[in-house]
């Protein structure tokens, strides 16, 4: 009997869902006790288990209360960390309440959200710097000013590294390479410089005399840099080349007004050498290096045609023309 019942109870216990206690219904005592077993349908003998009481956790008082005034804060808060009210000895409050004061620092999730700079106090920064100082090298001699740097290192390469708050360190934008160089440092002659400016188009900034090449077509930074340097080299050599068809450049193709090539010079030379007749060769060979009036006239005409008409250029032109036509008035 006993063996059979044990088996039965075992099987029921296995089959019954968790939480259902078959012993409560089947028998109140074990069969071996010698007592008479009672079928307890209404569960009167069942005493519900007392709810487990939570023992109060023993916690230490906040650390901030026992901190000495002259402690080293960098040891208390060595690295970035979420705000903890028991560690920070400041009476902080955070939050907005219409009727009461703002919530205090204990149990305040708002204070935990804000990134804090408690690890970047001035003494901590000083400590960092002094620790890093041993890895620093002296500033090279002869590179004291920006002009020195520009002279010795005329080319600037700009790349950007990106830091994200995510597990990946790769950013497609970091492949972009910008190469900057001052055009005057390339030692180009007049023709080469003009050709270079025409070749690079809007990559040349006239105001700062900067040639800026941005490369982003290759997948890696190294490839983009190599490509940028290749383009610069190719541009340099191509600018120094003189192609046969470049001789066909007409006066209308000139990028700006050049006085020597224009009828203005011929008119001026004719006027100064009056009454003798002047040929084209005379005009070409005529030099105005010692002629102050001629230089002024040339400057005024060039400025008027290159910069456009305004009060300043027109006035200058008027004075120059007066000096040419009525020299005695000018002297008086």
């Amino acid at each position: 009997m006993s063996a059979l019942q044990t088996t039965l109870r075992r099987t029921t216990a296995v089959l019954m869902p968790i939480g259902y206690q078959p012993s409560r219904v089947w028998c109140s005592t074990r069969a071996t006790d010698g007592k008479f077993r009672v079928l307890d349908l209404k569960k009167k003998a069942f005493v519900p288990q007392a709810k487990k009481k939570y023992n109060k956790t023993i916690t230490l008082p906040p650390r901030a209360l026992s901190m000495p005034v002259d402690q080293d804060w960098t040891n208390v808060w060595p690295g970035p960390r979420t705000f903890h009210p028991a560690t920070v000895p400041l009476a902080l409050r955070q939050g907005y309440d219409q009727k009461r004061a703002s919530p205090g620092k204990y149990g305040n999730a708002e204070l935990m959200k804000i990134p804090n700079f408690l690890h970047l106090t001035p003494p901590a920064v000083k400590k960092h710097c002094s620790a890093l100082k041993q890895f620093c090298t002296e500033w090279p001699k002869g590179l004291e000013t920006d002009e020195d740097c520009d002279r010795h290192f005329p080319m600037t390469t700009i790349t950007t590294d990106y830091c994200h708050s995510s597990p990946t360190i790769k950013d497609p934008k970091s492949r972009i390479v910008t190469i900057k160089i001052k055009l005057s440092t390339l030692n180009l002659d007049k023709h080469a410089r003009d050709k270079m400016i025409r070749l690079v188009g809007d990559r040349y900034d006239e105001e700062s005399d900067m040639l800026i090449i941005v490369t982003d077509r290759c997948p890696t930074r190294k490839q983009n840099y190599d490509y940028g340097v290749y383009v610069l080299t190719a541009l340099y050599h191509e600018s120094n080349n003189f192609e046969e068809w470049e001789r066909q450049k007409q006066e209308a193709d000139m990028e700006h007004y050049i006085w020597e090539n224009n009828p203005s010079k011929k008119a001026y030379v004719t006027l100064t050498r009056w009454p003798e007749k002047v040929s084209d060769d005379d005009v070409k060979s005529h030099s105005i290096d010692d002629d102050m009036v001629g230089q002024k006239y040339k400057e005024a005409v060039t400025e008027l045609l290159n910069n456009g008409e305004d009060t300043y250029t027109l006035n200058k032109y008027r004075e120059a023309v007066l000096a040419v036509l009525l020299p005695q008035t000018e002297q008086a």
Partner: protein
Amino acid sequence: MMFLDTLSRFLPARSNYLVLSRFKHVQAARYKRSIKGNKPLTYEMAGPPHTIAHIKGWNSWNTCNMLDGLRPAETAIDDEFIRRFITGTWHDLIASEIIIKRQHNIIRIAAITVQKISVTKIYFLIGYTEELLSYWLQCPIKLELQTVEDRTAVVFKYI
């Protein structure tokens, strides 16, 4: 809201009113008043979503949703997973929202817990959570907890 009320008063057309009435009936993240007025709300729960960045902060801090940010979707899913894992692991112990802050590849998780279980168990749970999450997300995880005696310490108001 006041603007919409005023607007709907001046717009007699029924079709317009219907559109506006949908705007007025927003329910998301707004808690219903209890009859007895004894429903506890934390500070975070007390502010509706439009008060974010005005009177309350964000619960997730990362750069993914900035212009040209990387992995915005993956980060959102990871955050949700972390929140579910922690509320389940720290069963009945978390008294605030779970704040997830990301710096480079470190994820620091902040929350307020109740001092219900022994300190040993809390230490175990911290290590367990950090270990498992860092295994799944493949990056260092830091759990930065603050404890309060009971839930009433984080209650901002009763409605």
